[in-house]
């Protein structure tokens, strides 16, 4: 893969497309969670391809291509939401009383619709990266450019929301 990245950085379109198409389905599914419809999700994929092709020369470490691409995809999704004024913000003070250990293995019957409906953009980012892309917290904090502790906090809050929702509680923001 690193060879392909190097070729793409030299302007080889075929190499770039080969790389991009490895992740385009992931990007589409991630985008869908943010933007909630097919048309906008496809716009995000197109914009991600545009931005990533334009800036691939700036990628210093080819081995980080995936995380770099995912970050671009998340930024594209958030930018689209900003354009549509659909970004929701966190409740102040929600970060208090975060436990050290985060219990992630509860087998919740979570549906795509729950992710779309009950989580804000920031929480979606962390949940997607943790569970869909299976990133470590370190990778999540690097991708989203947030402190490690904040990444854990956000994940805990997102899981709490999903659990409460599935139990019938309502923690919607």
């Amino acid at each position, binding site marked *: 893969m690193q060879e392909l990245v190097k070729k793409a950085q030299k*302007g080889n*379109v075929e190499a*770039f*497309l080969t790389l*991009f*198409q490895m992740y*385009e*389905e992931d990007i*589409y*599914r*991630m985008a*869908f*969670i943010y933007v909630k419809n*097919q048309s906008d999700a*496809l*716009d995000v*994929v*197109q*914009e*991600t*391809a*545009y*931005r990533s*092709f*334009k800036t691939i020369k700036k990628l210093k470490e080819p081995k980080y291509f995936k995380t770099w691409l995912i970050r671009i995809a998340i930024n594209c999704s958030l930018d689209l939401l900003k354009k549509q004024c659909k970004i929701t913000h966190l409740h102040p003070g929600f970060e208090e009383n975060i436990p050290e250990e985060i219990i*992630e*293995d*509860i*087998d*919740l*019957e*979570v*549906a*795509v619709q729950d*992710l779309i409906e009950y989580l804000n953009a920031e929480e979606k980012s962390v*949940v*997607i990266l*943790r*569970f*869909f892309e*299976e990133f470590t917290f370190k990778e999540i904090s690097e991708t989203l450019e947030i402190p490690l502790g904040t990444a854990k906090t956000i994940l805990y809050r997102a*899981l709490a929301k999903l659990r409460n929702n599935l139990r019938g509680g309502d923690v919607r923001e």
Partner: protein
Amino acid sequence: MSNKIKQEMTKIEIPKELSSRSLMGVNQAKGKFLFFIFLFILIPFSFYVYANIYDNYISWNNGYSTILAILIYLIVFIPLMAYVSEKLAKFSLKLGLDKRKNFIIFIAILITIPIIVTINDYREKDLDDVISFNSKDFEQLILGNAWTTDKKEHADELIDFLSQYRIKKMKDDEWNGDVSKEKGFSIDIYLKDKSLGASIYENRVWVYRSGKAYHVVNGPIDIDWIEKKVQEEFDELQW
């Protein structure tokens, strides 16, 4: 839970056009690059053409009209060039200009054209190449602001005489404004829809419309012949 979320997200259906949208994004990036290349070429080129048209064909140009012309250029022509650049970029992508080899050929052509134009500009040529006109459109010839004729034969004879001389373009800073030590005359030819004019000296020529100056390679030009010819015609009261 991780499996559940992954499983659930994997259920999101992938539309058929996904790959084509990825490709569109890449083409968009390539198109943008080509767009700026075209814009970079078209803006100075269009300004050059626009300024020449304004200088040569707008008879009422003065300080205010120049400001107006610049404003029109900024408001109308720059957006127009951006629009044309975008169309050219899209067209170029269709032609395959995004491929490295084709792009190099394209850039080579772009560089070659101005080089050829410049070489042609500075090549040695006949004097009548720079003040040629279509005889059918001839209306009047004025020599030295004094001798006037509307006979086409006089103009043809003069041009024929001048055609024996070879000229070569000189750089702007080579032109010496002091012409007092040289014999010379001015020539103005009025045609149906335009006019030509030049100052012709023994060893150099200044063409008004283009603003270009030339050395006479096989000079000096026989100014006495012109004066003698004019005098003969004047004596016969034909001029």
